[in-house]
């Protein structure tokens, strides 16, 4: 029997993997992809609770989360292109213009 706890554990696992990706990777593109993973894990939890409580509100909020994730991805990749044009790198460690 699949309960919503299964979904929550899976969501937590995906969020942890995504967090690890954000914290450890150096390639900015992969960091942005890891952020997408985290947002997906949040969506999974929202959908699981919507199913458990038999209310649709969780799914409505998941739609909003997807909209914000798309906005974040497009602006992030736009910034990345501008950055690559100026610094010729996608390494997060080399992007230190604001560091003392």
């Amino acid at each position, binding site marked *: *029997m*699949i*309960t*919503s*706890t299964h*979904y*929550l*554990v*899976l969501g*937590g696992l*995906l969020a*942890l*993997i*995504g*967090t*690890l*990706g954000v*914290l*450890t990777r*150096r*390639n900015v*593109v*992969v960091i*942005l*992809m*890891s952020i*997408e*993973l985290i947002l*997906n894990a949040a*969506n*999974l939890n929202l959908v*699981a609770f919507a*199913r*458990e409580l*038999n209310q*649709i*509100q969780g*799914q*409505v909020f*998941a*739609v*909003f989360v*997807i*909209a914000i*994730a*798309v*906005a974040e*991805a*497009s*602006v992030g*990749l*736009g*910034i*990345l*292109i501008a950055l*690559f044009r100026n610094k010729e*790198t*996608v*390494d*997060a460690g080399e992007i230190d213009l604001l560091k003392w």
Partner: protein
Amino acid sequence: MLDAIFFYAFALLAVAGAVLTVTRRNAVHSAIWLIVSLLGVAGLFLLAQAEFLFAVQIVLYVGGVMLLFLMVIMLVNLDRAKQERQFSQQWPAALALAAVAGFGLTVVFRKAGAVLPPMASPAEQGNTQWLSEVMFRQYLLPFELASVVLLVAMVGAVLMARKKAGT
């Protein structure tokens, strides 16, 4: 029973895709594995009777966002990035942090595991119809705000990515 088989299959797809996304050296491979992970999550949406979100996930994420990612990966120079070190020097600290967070989650789930009931029966109304009625009545203002956010993001992305003309 069939539910459980499908759940574990999609969960395996999602987790394996996520792990490979984070660990692959080549960013294109990462993107492909992220697509696999997103498809797994889409299957889980379908299992949780979120048919509209399933469609949105496939069309928008797998079709749209991942296309954007692949285009950008091809725009930026990958050959150099592949030869550099892939993980930052702080990876032990990050791993410790993730371990602590995972431990906390385990404790919480062990406490809550028995409390959460099995999922309720589906509604009689269609999923998309129900979702649209709630979204356009109860959440009309957030919906409009989301469209404004998307417009601002679109303008911002174009502004960031364009070549400086005349300067």
